[in-house]
């Protein structure tokens, strides 16, 4: 049994101006809930019109969201959460890269903005729930416990970026798109059928506050040029870079090392050391991680007691891998059944039990196969 068949709720629908959140709001209204739309102005420069590039939080997005709300027939407001977003998401994003980690700002936004700042304000104003266009399913057990599950269509599943939600946040979340086996094309067709003009609007970039998709350019502007060495595992200097923050563990392209490795095999980023501004590269095998430690664990229900076996997802669009995990002194210790490659500190590990989200934590350190620990 899912949310949309519950008693009518007072629902605040977060409407980005995109097709998913518009259809989600429409479905919530159709299900009999009392829905109010809200567009979050998150950009520090809300005046900016996007120019071809697909961004977020522009005047045009706000108008698209308003237009959709008018068609659905629900009240609509714009709330300015730009300052909170800058502090909690954008600055955190920059600081994480500066520290050599690879953050996921969408998780951060869900944890700190959509299901914190927005949800708190919604609850204070008398709303029961916040509705978004995420593809994930909330299952209500007979005893009233609520569980977050992968979307019915696992290809579109976004439960990974919602893995940071705790039980309280989940209790006030509504995901009307999650429990239907509809493809994106079908969502667009549904939008069309509902008369929503956003039906044909292109999908947004992964990182909404980098409208042109150029993350490196964004970071370079914020952090400046800082030339440093690219070295191999033995410490031998192979080349230079313009800033260690510009790299992600597992990255292969853009290393700009003029000469090939002695064995002719491609080289990958193994380690980023912000302290001495050094990027270490090496062969693919050296990327293999057998275990990791993750901090700031968050649980969708009660925290698991004792070690357990789960499947884990390590990236927004990554596959699943089997792990055993245990909570030790507030830290999550994870061992992989089979070694995995390209695990970057800063990213979230989300643990699943079948389709159910158990919880998440932020990767702090990994153990490479030879037994070395990298932070």
């Amino acid at each position: 049994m899912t949310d949309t068949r519950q008693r009518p709720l007072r629902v605040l629908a977060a409407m980005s101006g995109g097709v998913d959140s518009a259809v989600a709001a429409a479905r919530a209204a159709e299900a009999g809930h009392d829905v109010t739309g809200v567009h979050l102005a998150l950009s520090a420069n809300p005046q900016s019109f996007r120019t071809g590039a697909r961004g977020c939080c522009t005047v045009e997005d706000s108008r698209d969201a308003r237009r959709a709300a008018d068609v659905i027939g629900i009240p609509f407001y714009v709330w300015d959460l730009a300052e909170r977003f800058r502090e909690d998401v954008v600055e955190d994003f920059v600081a994480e890269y500066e520290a050599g980690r690879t953050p996921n700002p969408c998780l951060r936004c869900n944890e700190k903005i959509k299901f914190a700042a927005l949800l708190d304000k919604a609850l204070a104003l008398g709303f029961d729930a916040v509705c978004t266009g995420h593809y994930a399913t909330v299952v209500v057990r007979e005893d009233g416990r609520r569980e977050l599950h992968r979307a019915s269509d696992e290809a579109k599943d976004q439960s990974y970026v919602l893995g940071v939600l705790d039980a309280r946040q989940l209790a006030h979340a509504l995901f009307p798109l999650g429990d239907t086996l509809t493809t994106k094309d079908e969502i667009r067709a549904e939008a069309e059928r509902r008369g929503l003009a956003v039906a044909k609007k292109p999908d947004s970039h992964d990182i909404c506050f980098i409208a042109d998709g150029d993350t490196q350019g964004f970071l370079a502007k914020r952090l400046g040029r800082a030339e440093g060495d690219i070295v191999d595992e033995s410490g031998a200097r192979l080349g230079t870079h313009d800033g260690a923050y510009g790299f992600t563990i597992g990255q292969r392209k853009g290393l700009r090392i003029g000469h090939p490795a002695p064995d002719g095999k491609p080289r990958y980023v193994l380690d980023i050391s912000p302290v001495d501004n050094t990027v270490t590269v090496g062969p693919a095998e050296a990327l293999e991680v057998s275990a990791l430690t993750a901090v700031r664990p968050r649980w969708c229900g009660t925290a698991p007691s004792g070690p357990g076996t789960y499947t884990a997802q390590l990236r927004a669009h990554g596959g699943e891998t089997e792990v055993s995990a245990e909570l030790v002194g507030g830290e999550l210790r994870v061992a992989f059944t089979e070694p995995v490659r390209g695990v970057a500190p800063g990213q979230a590990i989300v643990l699943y039990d079948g389709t159910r989200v158990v919880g998440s934590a932020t990767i702090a350190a990994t153990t490479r196969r030879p037994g070395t620990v990298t932070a």
Partner: protein
Amino acid sequence: MAYLDHAATTPMLPEAIEAMTAQLAATGNASSLHAAGRRARRTVEEAREALAEALGARPSEVVLTSGGTEADNLAVKGLYWARRAADPRRTRVLASPVEHHAVLDAVHWLAGHEGANVEYLPVDALGRVHPETLREALERDPSDVALATVMWANNEIGTVMPVRELADVAAEFAVPLHSDAVQAFGQLDVGFAASGLAAMTVSSHKIGGPYGVGALLLGREHSPVPVLHGGGQERHVRSGTLDVPAVAAFAVAARTAAERREDFARDIGALRDRLVAAVLDAVPDAILGGDPEDRLPANAHFTFPGCEGDSLLLLLDARGIECSTGSACTAGVAQPSHVLLATGTAPDLARGTLRFSLGHTSTAEDVEAVAGAIGPAVERARAAGLS
């Protein structure tokens, strides 16, 4: 449903709808020479005469426009260009900082693109420009002033400006004074000839006429440079085929508004006083904005400390009460009102405002609805806080 946003727009009067629909079926460009054109021109000129009478002006002083915004732009930009063309030293523009954006942004544009030196005349805590303030600004150097512009009554907080005194001061220095009387028309005596103004803006849809039509009352000695060039239909300062049905209906609404003004001010003023009392009773720390006495009879403006105006709007809207925060949005994001900031209100406080504006359809039930809803709404909005 309690509609308390008449300052945004007010329902059309039945007699204006009747006049408009009658004209919609008729053909005729008021500039044409044939019979159809003559009929249309007669309708327009009769409307112009009715407007002139309602506004205490001569028919030749009524320049019809597409609305208040165009009239404000024509007055501010047109008079600036004309005065500067006559004497290139005249680049100073004196404006109150509490003007509607139609004036404020026009003035700002002149500063950015036409070399205007804009001087904002300070207002007191009630949002009023004092005649002495204008005098000081003019005395400093009367020869470099292109024009001054001060609204008749403020659209947000309702304070009435001492327009006649200001016009007297401006006249002493032979500087044209423009006044945006969009909110004042229908509520105050805005006789143009008696005011001493060089130019005055009025709008149709704020007094029960249709959207898309307004007028600039313009003294005959003033020839602003046009903003719209073309056929020169309106005294060669405004071009564009006249919207005959809208003009006819505007005239009917203006005549009705002028006839009913005193009754409106008394009756709606009394209803407004009850609304103010009810709100202050329900929320004792609410602050009534603007001048408590000398204000628009239909305006009630409040600041609710610790509230976001947007939250209050949402909560009242859900209870069927339609009002406004009173301030403009930037990209849909509520900004602290420039009017309140100009009166010295702290920015955080200036975010928690609501404007209730009454009109010809307002009833005691509307006031009761606000009285019942405002206390709980403010309590809720305070819990939600300032984001």
